């Protein structure tokens, strides 16, 4: 059969871009969470006018950026129905490695960045290989590499945080520079978002990521190179974690061994709040942006409101759960409370 000859060519229906946006999977939750974000924003603004000061807003965006960057990486992995627990440790490894190379080894920033990036990507490849080739459960594989990467972070500078780095250029480039009123991390996050969103929504690799998360077998039966695709997700995740590590080094001017501690789960929270499904096959990076912003606004807003750290954690935890519950309800799987509490229906008499 020759393609597109043996039949009459139908006129392709005009693709209404707006409709396409709304038809995208996970868009429902993105919309409802965006509304929630707007409400929160207004509430915090009413509570304290300083919250909406120009100064605080630029700072807020800078705080959100690292979470967004690792959230993008985690979203990639979650969409394939996996999870990457090593993100936080890779952040730490990146921070310690780059700072050590710049201080103790005295390398110029460019060389330090290159070596750090290579190491982090190697770890991402290891994650990918363990999951896609050795068929380890992602949870186990990345739990192992999480501990390894943290070990590396402690080992590179003999179990000590590094001294201060001398290159002000490095610190400015990754944290302090301002361009068009926005700090460097915001620009980095924006560029990464644009690249990875393009990859996920437009490129073939993106389609394949969704497909293997939705049905691995069917993707394989459709001729997708499933192992290679799965690998790519973990490499993207490690790359993004590496970038965040560099940002943290630039911020504090040194490498800290516990940098990025717990970030992997913050990344899951940002993704999940934004509608990325941990079951795979569903989610939009735009949702992850909103999810990260909610995380940032809550953190920053509650601080302005004078709430203690403990309360912030409680609120963020609740938001994670509620945002997913809302999505369930919106999708028609209305909560069956009886089921939730294990109350059994009376047996139906058989006909």
């Amino acid at each position, binding site marked *: 059969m020759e393609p597109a000859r043996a039949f009459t060519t139908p006129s392709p229906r005009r693709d209404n871009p707006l409709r396409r946006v709304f038809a995208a999977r996970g868009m429902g939750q993105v919309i409802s969470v965006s509304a929630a974000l707007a409400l929160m924003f207004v509430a915090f603004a009413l509570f304290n006018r300083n919250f909406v000061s120009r100064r605080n807003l630029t700072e807020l965006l800078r705080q959100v950026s690292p979470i967004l960057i690792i959230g993008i990486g985690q979203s990639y992995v979650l969409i394939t129905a996996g999870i990457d627990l090593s993100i936080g440790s890779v952040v730490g490894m990146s921070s310690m490695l780059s700072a050590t190379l710049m201080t103790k080894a005295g390398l110029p920033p460019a060389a330090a960045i290159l070596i750090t990036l290579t190491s982090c990507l190697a770890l991402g490849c290891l994650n990918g290989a363990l999951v896609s080739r050795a068929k380890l459960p992602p949870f186990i594989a990345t739990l192992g590499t999480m501990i390894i990467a943290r070990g590396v972070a402690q080992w590179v500078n003999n179990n000590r945080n590094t001294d201060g780095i001398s290159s002000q250029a490095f610190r400015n480039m990754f944290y302090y520079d301002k361009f068009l009123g926005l700090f460097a991390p915001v620009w980095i996050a924006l560029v990464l978002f644009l690249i990875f969103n393009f990859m996920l929504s*437009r490129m073939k690799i993106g*389609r394949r990521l*969704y*497909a293997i998360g*939705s*049905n691995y077998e*069917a993707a394989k039966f*459709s001729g*997708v190179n499933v192992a290679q695709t799965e690998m790519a997700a973990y490499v993207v995740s490690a790359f993004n974690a590496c970038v965040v590590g560099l940002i943290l080094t630039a911020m504090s001017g040194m490498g800290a061994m516990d940098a990025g501690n717990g970030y992997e789960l913050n990344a899951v929270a940002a993704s999940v709040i934004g509608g990325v499904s941990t079951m795979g096959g569903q989610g939009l990076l735009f949702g992850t942006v909103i999810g990260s912003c909610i995380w940032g606004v809550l953190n920053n807003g509650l601080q302005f409101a004078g709430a203690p750290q403990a309360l912030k954690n409680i609120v963020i935890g609740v938001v994670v759960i509620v945002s997913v519950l809302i999505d369930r309800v919106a999708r028609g799987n209305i909560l069956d409370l009886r089921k939730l509490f294990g109350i059994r229906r009376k*047996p139906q008499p058989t006909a």
Partner: protein
Amino acid sequence: MHTSRSSQTPLVRMSGICKTFPGVQALDDVSFDLYPGEVHALLGENGAGKSTLMKILGGIYAQDAGEFTVANRRAEHMSPKRAQELGVAVIHQELNLCPHLTVAENIFLGREQTKFGALAQRRMNAEAAQILTDLRIDISPDAIVSKLPVGGQQMVEIAKALSAHCKVLVMDEPTSALTSREVDELNRMIRDLQSVGCGIAYISHRLEELAAIADRVTILRDGRHIATMNYRDTNIHQIISFMVGREITEKFPTVTAPRGQELLRVEHLASRAVHDVSFSLYKGEILGFAGLMGAGRTELMRAIFGADAMLSGDIILEGKSLRINSPRDAIRHGIVCVPEDRKKEGLCINLPIHENVGLANLDRLTAPLSTIDRAAERLTTQRAIDELKIKTPSQNQYARNLSGGNQQKVVVGKWLVRDAKVFLFDEPTRGIDVAAKVEIYNLMNRMKSQGLGVLFVTSEMPEALGMADRILVMCEGCITGEFTRETATQEKILEAATRFARVAI
């Protein structure tokens, strides 16, 4: 046993049982009875209704009409638990044991005995040992189930069933995974059970082995009761003729096409469930694969398509030997597959139609920067929708929202735009409505007249006879028969499909 039956009351008396599944009348006014101390074999082709009838007896399904009694008690509001209380135990085709637990733990699963709230491990082990000894089963109660051979696990299932004091034991193809020694052992146990007054309903496709145990046989066909006979008053030929007398009510569209050159040759192929299979497929031919469930036909297709590893053998397409290590390789060489389980292997049901179709054709839908040419994808999808008459409001419809027939058409549609040479159809019409079936048949015929090759696995015998130019019959991973359209009959196919290598008599 036969002689005294009339004076006994039956353990099970089922009458007028009807059961409808969406689109299928699975059982239509079926009667069945079972007396103490007898083995009553229940026979029929795939889909004749045997398992459905036994699942009703076991409380898994509720019948739509008809009633039955177990030990003179009316069976109402049935559930598996209630069936157990009535003394019915069912040993299903698939084993239902927890592989990591011990034999005794499995036997007492769900009704563990306790002492001061703690598990009475020793007592349960002792009782399990007693049960096993009574059955003359040589297995330790504290053996881990996964370490036992399949036959041993089967014995544990039986011990578990009997420990619940059952009077009626249903066995659904108990011997399909057993060695002949294990079958002997099983038969010995069945006779022991008979002697203590248990009734045994026995489903099997291995007609030869019935000789050793069956007292009576009941034959079902298309959900209807055909005959009940004393086993010694009948013979295998008569049983087969009752089993296959299936009316061919469907009309199959036929197309004659000249058989061309050899397209695909498979030589000595072996995989995990296929043993030394060789055959040729010609251009313009539909080659049917008939056989019973589990005969190895799906595994053969999976091996050819690269979804299962080939242990040995060659696949030769148009004279060239292929190396196929993954479905990707097969597709690149022009071999495509419509898999048996469309929800598991055919579709990403949470993705829209155009993404499902696009996924299989991404290599030809490339735009600059490795992006997807969406316009071409729309065209491709529209072509599949038009050609296969897929009923959907739009290409953006999620696959999960389509009917079974339309889902299947999407799976087929994925491959339409490729220059595929060989199509593997594995049970393509299972669970879809008649109109959709006919469209699939027409499509297969069109491929045939275009000189493509079609491998067509089907468990529906009329379909094999109506559509295939040649039929290969498989049994236990081997080809046990080959027929042309002219020489094939239902009897011959069934006989080849039950040609088991090891006959346990």
